[in-house]
Structures are given as structure tokens and as C-alpha cells.
């Protein structure tokens, strides 16, 4: 979550006071990604220091200042919007590691482990879905943020389903060795912390 660029985006609509920016930021995505109020004001000070925003009263409190975006700020925002985030390296995924470990342990039912996580994630998805149940009160930015979370969780359920199916088939086919040493997996996927 880039607070810096979200604030620039709000300022690209026109000049705004610090307290107003904090309020609008919270109304758009802050509900889903809560953040410390202080982060907003600290970021506003940095944006001004870096010449991406400006205000008339340099000495005033960040809450009371009327900020506007500079041409450099607009360029920064435009460039940021079109720069894809770096997704090339898979993250170190705790759930993946738990399932891999469970698949190696003789006294652990890996399917039961998978189901525990599947149930938890579906319950979490039920909670997110409830948030967008009342369409009449659904703000579009909030709906998009909730959708993003639902798609992320859905991908985890799909992976669990795929893992379940793959392990099941491997057992059915009586493969001599289902699990592979974890360090090899990490090297192959390039997983990092």
C-alpha cells in the first residue's frame, strides 16, 4: 500500500488540507487497509520536502496546511501508476510450507491439515463477502478493495484444492516418494523471505 502515491492521487483532484486528505484516504481504502494516522502526516511532510507537493504556509501544522500537487508530483504519480509491481519472485508462503511439511510426516494426515486451512480461509471469505452484501451502501473503492482480498483468498483455496488433488493422485498412483526435500523446493521456486 503506497500511502505516498495514494495521497498524490487525492491531491491530483485539487488542493486539499491535511486533515481532509487523511479523512478521504481513510474513506477510500483505509477501511480495508487501516493505518496509523501519524503515517499520513509524516508522508505529507516528506512529499513537500521532496518537491512533489507544496503549500503556502510552510510553518503550519500538517493538519492545517493546504497542500497542492506540483508538476513533479504529477509526473511521479503518472509513472507510478504505469510501473508494474515486482511480482517476479514468489514470496515465502507459510501455508505452502506447512502443507509441504505435513506431506512428509508419516503421522500427520495432510488432507486434514489442508482442510483446516481451507475451512479457515472460506470462513474469512464469508466475512469479506458479508461486507459487500448491501449493494446500496457499497462504495466502489471499498468494493474493489474487498474484491481484491476475495480473489487473493480464492487463489489460496484453489491452491489447496490443487494440492489436495495432486497428493491424492500421487498416493493413488503409489508414487514411491511424494515429498521432495524442502531446500530443493525453495531453490526451484526462488522463494525468499
Amino acid at each position, binding site marked *: 500500500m503506497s500511502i505516498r502515491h495514494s495521497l498524490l492521487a487525492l491531491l491530483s483532484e485539487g488542493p486539499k488540507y491535511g486533515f481532509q486528505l487523511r479523512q478521504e484516504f481513510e474513506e477510500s481504502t483505509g477501511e480495508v487497509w487501516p493505518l496509523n494516522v501519524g503515517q499520513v502526516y509524516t508522508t505529507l511532510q516528506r512529499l513537500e520536502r521532496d518537491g512533489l507537493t507544496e503549500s503556502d504556509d510552510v510553518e503550519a501544522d500538517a493538519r492545517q496546511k493546504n497542500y497542492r500537487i506540483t508538476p513533479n508530483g504529477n509526473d511521479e504519480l503518472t509513472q507510478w501508476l504505469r510501473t508494474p509491481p515486482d511480482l517476479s519472485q514468489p514470496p515465502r508462503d507459510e501455508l505452502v510450507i506447512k502443507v509441504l511439511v505435513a506431506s512428509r510426516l508419516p503421522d500427520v494426515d495432510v488432507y486434514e491439515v489442508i482442510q483446516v486451512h481451507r*475451512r479457515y480461509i472460506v470462513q474469512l471469505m*464469508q466475512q469479506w463477502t458479508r461486507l459487500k452484501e448491501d449493494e446500496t451502501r457499497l462504495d466502489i473503492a471499498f468494493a474493489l478493495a474487498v474484491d481484491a482480498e476475495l480473489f487473493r483468498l480464492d487463489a489460496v483455496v484453489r491452491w489447496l484444492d490443487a494440492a489436495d488433488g495432486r497428493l491424492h493422485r500421487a498416493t493413488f498412483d503409489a508414487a514411491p516418494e511424494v515429498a521432495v526435500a524442502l531446500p530443493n523446493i525453495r531453490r526451484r521456486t526462488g522463494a525468499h523471505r
Partner: protein
Amino acid sequence: MSMLELRQVSKSYGEGATEVDAISDIDLTVERGSLVAIMGPSGSGKSTLLTIAGSLEEPTSGEVMIDGARLAGMSRNDKARLRRRSVGYVFQDFNLLAGLTAVENVSLPLELDGVSMKKARSQGLAALEGLGLSERADNFPDQLSGGERQRVAIARAVVGERSLLLADEPSGALDSVNGEAVMRMILAACHNGVAAVVVTHDAKLASWADRVVFLRDGKAVDETLPPPSPEELLNPDVVNPAS
């Protein structure tokens, strides 16, 4: 009273060495106004469960009750009447009759049940209107988009006094926005007192349900707990229960 109750329901196909258990010892209760999703991989028995719940197929053992009535004790005619009056089905591929218009498709079950053509059409139009399709009432299925066809199928499933809605992968090949719209319609029917069972492999659709039952190899292996308040997600102080 529960609208649908399955007690120790099992279904096997074949005999002897070729016998296969499609579902085993399933217990399921669905109250009026509630939406239950059944999730599971292909071949886990989801569709078999749905066809037995809708009396389209007989269980090998166990008991099915719809609105308090035991299906095992009913004649074929009584079951057919119960299906027409109380049970609505939504299928993945819509199953609309190509030679009938949208409103004719929706009102057909009522007409088959002896309701006059005029009254059936009026109820059919009301059902379509409820789903925002009144302007498409006289269009044939091939003149409708995929999303519109599925809305017609849902209108047909809830028209009249239907109180049990059974849906098998109801979003079919629809995109996620239309799939969500389908679930909203099913949920709206539940808010009007209908009991619904939705079979799906899609967790995004299942998450609209009050309860999700997980099927594996024909057995109900798990189900979700009543979810905590959604507002807790927006409270950063809530502790992650998985941690």
C-alpha cells in the same frame, strides 16, 4: 421447521465388485431463509447430493424430508407435485426451453401444475420483474446474454410458492461480476424465506452462503463455523484466529 432434511443418506451405483458409493451417510439440514453451499472436488458427490435432495433420484438408504414430508412414503405423482410446487432447480447450463420465450419458460412449471395460463404469465412476469428482466420477457433464450439466461432460470426456480431452491454450479461459465449477481439473487430469495442449497467448487460463490459444507469422497467431512461479524475484519485489533 427445516425445509430440507437429509438423514444418513447414501447412494451407490453398480453392484458387487463394480459398486461405487457416490455419497455416504450424509446428514444435512437446511432451514427456511438460509443458504447452504456444498463444496468439493469433481467426483465428490456434490451433484448426486443435490439430485437426491430434489427427489430427482432415490437414495440407496437414508431419509429425505422436504418441508417435513418424507419422500420415501410418497407416490410418484405426489413427488412430482412436490417438485413442481416446492422445489426450484438452477443448472449450470440454464436448461431453458429454446422454443419458449423468457416468460413462458418461467411460467411453465405453474401451468404444468394447473394454474391458468393468464395467472401463470402474470406470476412469471412478476418473477422476471423482480430480477430486472421484465423488458426481456418476450425474448427467446438465444436472444438473451448468458447472464440474462441465468436470471430467467432463477426466476423459473423461485416462481410461485417455491420454498426450496437447489442450484448446481449456478454461475456456470459466467464472469465473476455476473456470478456475483446470481448469488445476490439467490440470497435475495433466501431473505424472502426460501431455503437454498448451492453446489459449487468456487469459494467466491460459496462465501455468500451462511454455511459451507465440504464434501470429500462422498462424505461430509467438515463445515464452516458461523462466521464472526464482518466488521471485525475492519478492526485492526482483532487477533488473526489462524495465528
